[in-house]
């Protein structure tokens, strides 16, 4: 890990002795074996011999680091100037291609969302959990539970969330919960998904249907319906029949024009074909208002009374009978959550990330909290500060160094996020959830097999991480000094 390079190393011995050096609060029990302090304790400078011995002890680590960190970095930079096969020098072409590929632009956009949202929310959640669990009786148990996801491999977490976010409420936990809650006030129509067989003569009101042609008093309307799953035929449904004509009224029948095994004839009420009861039917006049309404009987018949002679109306099968069942959210879909993105799938993956990392943030912050002197908070309380003021003005400022550690660690983690995005989205939305690390892999190995372009992406990702690591080193140093 590059951040490990931040430890002071041998150059510490060149520091001037600093008598006033104080071990920072944030690093309780800082080790006195550091060279500068050792120098103070032993009271002598290190000679060439010690430095040589030191180097010998460092050599294995340096060689290993050189072979698996430094060399690959330089090789990657070198490789990024060569083509797909690695034998033609193409200058900056890979970089030019990288920034003109739509998938890179999507990756960068997603990366920004990730960096802005995920570490911040995870830290806030961690802070909330840490502060709150300090106050409750089973705090440790609660903390353990929040921390548990860290013990699960990210791949397994990805699989869990892939399943939890399945679109079908029968399989996906998230939609199962949402649709169950929604079903308290949502009442889908009993005839949802069904349609008149003669679709050309009906206008689809989505939901609901209206005839194209008009009818007048004394007419008999036959509406043949199809595509109703057999298990949703109401049990009170009776055999359909054609009603007789009535003066001053439109009569009709709505029936399920389907016999098992395809035995019946389309458009004809065959034996065994049943009416569709309790469907709201309305007569709509030219101005679009309902002049009469009725409900179908168990045999599917209805009577729209009070049609004035000469009036021509359209027959509407009212929307409430066809209202679709809400199927939840397409969590792993590509619809943008705002007009400029990101796709909802990115948000869903961030939720999975939070599930894993909030526990990590909580643990670090809780450790910081427990090392914080109680007296400061007590003093503020005695002075009459409210709990919110204590939290806002005392706890958070004192925790600031820890919060920064957590935030920076999470930012680095987010910049190289890969596994969750490989696993959670289905193939149809993976491109919309793309991030640079995944794009790098896809271009280099996962189908693209262009390791030149992949190396360019690697260099780009490296450059993105460098400022964060630099910031981390700076902060580390200032903590120590």
């Amino acid at each position, binding site marked *: 890990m590059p951040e490990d390079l931040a430890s002071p190393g041998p150059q510490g011995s060149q520091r001037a002795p600093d008598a006033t050096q104080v071990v920072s609060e944030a690093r309780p029990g800082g080790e006195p074996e550091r060279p500068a302090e050792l120098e103070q304790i032993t009271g002598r400078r290190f000679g060439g011999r010690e430095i040589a011995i030191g180097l010998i002890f460092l050599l294995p680590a340096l060689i290993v680091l050189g072979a698996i960190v430094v060399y690959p970095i330089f090789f990657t930079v070198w490789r990024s100037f060569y083509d797909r096969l690695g034998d033609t020098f193409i200058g900056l072409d890979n970089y030019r291609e990288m920034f003109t590929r739509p998938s890179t632009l999507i990756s960068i956009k997603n990366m920004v969302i990730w960096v802005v949202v995920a570490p911040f929310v995870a830290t806030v959640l961690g802070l909330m959990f840490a502060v709150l669990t300090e106050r409750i009786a089973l705090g440790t148990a609660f903390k353990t539970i929040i921390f548990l996801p860290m013990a699960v491999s990210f791949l397994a977490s990805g699989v869990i969330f892939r399943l939890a976010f399945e679109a079908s409420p029968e399989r996906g936990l998230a939609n199962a919960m949402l649709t169950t809650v929604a079903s308290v006030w949502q009442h889908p129509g009993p005839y949802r998904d069904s349609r008149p067989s003669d679709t050309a003569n009906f206008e689809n009101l989505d939901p609901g249907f209206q005839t194209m042609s008009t009818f007048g008093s004394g007419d008999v309307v036959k509406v043949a319906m199809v595509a109703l799953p057999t298990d949703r035929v109401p049990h009170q449904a009776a055999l359909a029949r054609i009603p007789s004509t009535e003066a001053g009224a439109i009569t009709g029948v709505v029936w399920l024009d389907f016999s098992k*095994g395809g035995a019946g004839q389309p458009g004809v009420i065959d034996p065994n074909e049943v009416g569709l009861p309790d469907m709201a039917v309305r007569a709509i006049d030219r101005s679009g208002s309902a002049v009469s309404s009725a409900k179908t009987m168990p045999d599917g018949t209805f009577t729209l009374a009070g049609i004035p002679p000469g009036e021509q109306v359209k027959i509407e099968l009212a929307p409430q009978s066809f209202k679709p069942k809400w199927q939840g959210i397409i969590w792993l879909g*590509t619809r943008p959550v705002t007009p400029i993105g990101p796709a909802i799938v990115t948000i869903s993956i961030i939720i999975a990330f939070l599930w894993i990392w909030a526990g990590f943030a909580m643990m670090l912050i809780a450790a910081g909290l427990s090392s914080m002197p109680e007296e400061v908070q007590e003093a503020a309380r005695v002075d009459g500060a409210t709990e919110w003021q204590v939290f806002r003005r005392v706890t958070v400022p004192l925790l600031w160094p820890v919060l920064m550690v957590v935030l920076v660690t999470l930012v680095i983690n987010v910049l190289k996020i890969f596994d969750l995005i490989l696993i959670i989205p289905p*193939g149809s939305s993976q491109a919309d959830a793309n991030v640079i690390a995944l794009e790098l892999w896809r271009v280099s190995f996962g189908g693209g097999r262009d390791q030149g372009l992949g190396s360019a992406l690697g260099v780009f990702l490296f450059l993105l991480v460098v400022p964060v690591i630099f910031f981390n080193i700076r902060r580390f140093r200032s903590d120590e000094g």
Partner: protein
Amino acid sequence: MKKYHVKPRGARFFLVVLIAVVAMIAAACSSSSDTTTTQETGGEGSTTTAAGSMPDLSGQSVEVAAVWSGNEQANFQKVLDQFASDTGASVTFTSTGDDIATVLGTSIEGGSPPTVAILPQPGLLNELASKGSLTDIGPIAGDLVDQNYAPVWRDLGSVDGTLYGVWFKAANKSTVWYNTQLFDDAGATVPATWDDFLTQAKKISDSGITPVSVGGADGWTLTDWFENVYLRTAGPDMYDQLTTNDIQWTDQSVKDALSKLADVFGDPALLSGGVDTALQNGFVPSVTRVFGDSPEAAIVYEGDFVAGVISDETNSVVGTDALFFAFPSIDGSEPSVVGGGDVAVLLDDTPAGQALIQYLATPEAAEIWASNGGFVSPNKAVDPAVYPDDITRQIATELAGATVFRFDMSDLQPPEFGGTPGQGSWAGLQDFLAHPTEIDRITQEMADAANKAFGG
């Protein structure tokens, strides 16, 4: 300053560390991937040879690499075991995991390729052959291929006239699977033509089951749909040209094929669960949607391997609850099969490797696996009676009886166009599934992606 004896010690230390690092890297290279599993077959000590023509190869060893794992690996192992006991050679099988291209590429670069590799993509055969990584499989194997296979298979195993591979296993990807119960309930019959297919699908839709299940989350299911339609509407010559990008994706023939496909994809009465479900469901859920305990669709198109998914993932029984019909003919097209295959190639020219390639071209080798199921051989000398069930026999018969056979187009295209999620034809056809009316825009985008992938 005094020179210390540290320096020689340091140098030795350096050497030790260097050796350790090199050893680590070497170990990492040779084990290549976590999913790699190795099984060895000891052939020594065996004296009984079934096939009299088999050479004695005692003491020689063959290393075979293929993507197969699990059941397929176990069945192929039986074939290798027979070869080992016939010849006395010792055979090691390595399962490369899905990404055989990378694994082989690494081992070729590292100078230690397997003797024989079974490539799942015809495109990879061309690529390795043009890189010079393959060796001619020789005249004996060539004669066996001519004798046991239809001519098309020699062409498909050759690059620039040199025969590099023996097609050992084939797949029929022109099979449309249906739920017999739901067909009976709706009174639907097996269609032979596209128009009849739409009529029957409509009949099932009227019965209350939106019939056609599409696993659009996996782009390859959509390329397979398209290829079957295109092979029938545009014909094999155009198919070959589109495969190599010699005609553009904006060609009218592509648009016509997509319009045909829109008959199904664009009709909410036929596309089960609507577009959202089709795009969210992968291949396996698209099959369980048809053959699960409470089926929500009646028809799923995909290759012969659907049978395996039905057996593994559902309680439906292939052959009674689940049957298939050949992808319907469009506007009087000839019996056409889009398929796939696994080709055995020789990476290291040893006598034992040559012998194994020759063995794999014989019906005897294919029949070992065929009798165990889950296998269709392109070898026409294989006795159909060895197939364990009617479905497999029907698959094999359709494959053998097809007037036109073409490989899965997307397997032959550069993977960034034909084989990568979110790119090229996969992304284009997913886009088409979501927007079946925007054919002009989508074909233009696919043409751009194809031109780029083909380096044009």
